[in-house]
């Protein structure tokens, strides 16, 4: 498995990940994309969904909340408004955020911004998924 591609994950606050990887699976707006080294140049929007990274024999997940992926044959750049490695996620906080978003959605109050609550719920779910992945 010598064939590798550079992956950079950038958020406005910092560079989250920068390393050589074997394969990346990302969920784009219209479905999953698997990217191997030497992929044709591509730009796609991403969903709020964990990014799966295959490196040597191991697989890691990184939570992403929306963003873009730009692929060049030798380099993948991901721009996301937030991105967290499993060890950076505060599972308790995500759990709380999930509960909060759920109660908001269940209230069916007109004052609730449904879109926003749904987005918050989705982010919390993705974070939990990534946080539990390691276990």
């Amino acid at each position, binding site marked *: 498995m010598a064939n590798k591609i550079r992956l950079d994950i950038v958020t*406005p606050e910092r560079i989250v990940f920068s390393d050589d990887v074997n394969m990346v699976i990302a969920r*784009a707006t219209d479905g999953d994309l698997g990217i191997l080294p030497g992929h044709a140049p591509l*730009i796609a929007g991403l969903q709020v969904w964990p990014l799966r990274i295959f490196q040597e024999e191991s697989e890691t997940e990184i939570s992403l909340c929306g963003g873009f992926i730009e692929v060049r044959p030798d380099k993948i750049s991901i721009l996301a408004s937030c991105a967290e490695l499993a060890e950076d996620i505060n599972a308790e906080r995500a759990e709380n955020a999930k509960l909060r978003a759920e109660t908001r959605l269940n209230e069916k109050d007109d004052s609730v911004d449904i879109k926003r609550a749904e987005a918050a719920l989705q982010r919390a779910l993705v974070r939990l998924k990534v946080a539990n992945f390691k276990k």
Partner: protein
Amino acid sequence: MPSVQDIRRRIKSVKSIQQITKAMKMVAAARLRRAQERANASRPYTEKIQEILASVASGSSDAKHPLLEVRQVNRTGFVILGADKGLAGAYTANLLREIVPRIQEKEDVELITAGRKVNDYFRRRNYKVAQQFSGFSERPTFQNAKELADLVANAYASGQYDEMYLAYTKFHSPIHHEPTVIRLLPLEQAAKEKSKASGEYIFEPSAEEVLNLLLPKYLETVIFGALVQAAASELGARMAAMGSATDNAQELISKLVLNYNKVRQANITREITEIVGGAEALK
């Protein structure tokens, strides 16, 4: 001539003011360092998003998007990023000096202000302030930028404003920053001539879709960059202002101490002459 006590009291009060300005200077310096780091950390993201936007824009030159639409200008919106707190030297004054003439040359203007100092300034002068924010001028988060960007994008897309400007203070170095006004919307089609690099990209699902997603993000990034720079400038200005305040206090203290000693000396001399005079009279 003030008495010894008066001078002593002055010295004491100047000293405690100096302690405050010194502490503020050091706090500003520490925060400035962090703000600068944040400004630097956001740079790769900004550059990348500009790069992608340029390639997408050239890949879909006839794309239609509400944020790209150029309209006849009836009403202009200004987004002004200023400070929450004073004691930053001429920071707010410089920013206002730059933007007030710009605002006055437009016919119908509404303002969106961030930062208590600018809120108050425009409120008091009866400008139309459509929305105001405060509480994050020193430590802006991406969330703050997002909020502002959403507001700006919605206001523009709904036709509330036909043109939007962003005013902030650009950060060059801790002692050099300049107030800047840039046009936020309609977005200028970034660098169309760079088409050669982008022709080869596949867009998933299509260039238009990607553009739809990208433009709001781009707006957020621009605003976030401006917020971070404004924060760094504010802290830089405060650090410089508090530094010179501390120096001035030191100077004032040494003058007062000199004065104090003179008065004290004069008192002693006078007392001695009085005693000597009294003793002479008794002979």
